């Protein structure tokens, strides 16, 4: 595949995944911070602060999950290599 085309596809995929992450974050934080009482249209200060913290935490969780996934997949790769070496030498 043309490297420029591959780069373009990767950028499009990244944008799509960021949009998906944003939608999930919105849903999660809304559920945690905005109770379903619709008497007033304005958000209270507590709700605003909760949303700010929620976003900060969600992004941190996202980063942590990414690192953990990488670590776990590297571990799996190592295990697979060891198994293959084991069957190869036997």
């Amino acid at each position, binding site marked *: 595949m043309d490297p420029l085309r591959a780069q373009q596809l990767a950028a499009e995929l990244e944008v799509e995944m960021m949009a998906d992450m944003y939608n999930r974050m919105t849903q999660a934080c809304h559920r945690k911070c905005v109770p379903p009482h619709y008497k007033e249209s304005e958000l209270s200060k507590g709700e605003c602060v909760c949303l700010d913290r929620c976003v900060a935490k969600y992004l941190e969780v996202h980063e942590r*999950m990414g690192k953990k996934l990488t670590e*776990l997949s590297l571990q799996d790769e190592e295990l697979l290599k060891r198994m293959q070496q084991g069957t190869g030498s036997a």
Partner: protein
Amino acid sequence: LRDFLLVYNRMTELCFRHCVCNLNYRLLTGREESCLDSCAARLVRANHRLMGAYVGLVPALLQRRAAEHGTPAGPSGLPASPDPAAGPAES
């Protein structure tokens, strides 16, 4: 790659929903961090197990469907149609 990234996003959402309950602080607490680590590991292992089970069961299922498709019976997966009414009901 797309599927992997979708799984990543779903994992983030699930583990966040389950592990992060205290929004009094901006930073993650130690308890939340260990919960998130366990959550990630469990989900990955569950996913592997699921895939293994799926890969084990699908060939037999497809074989069964192919065998059913070959027979002259009704469409697979649907119940047999009921018999038509015997005759007009007596008054």
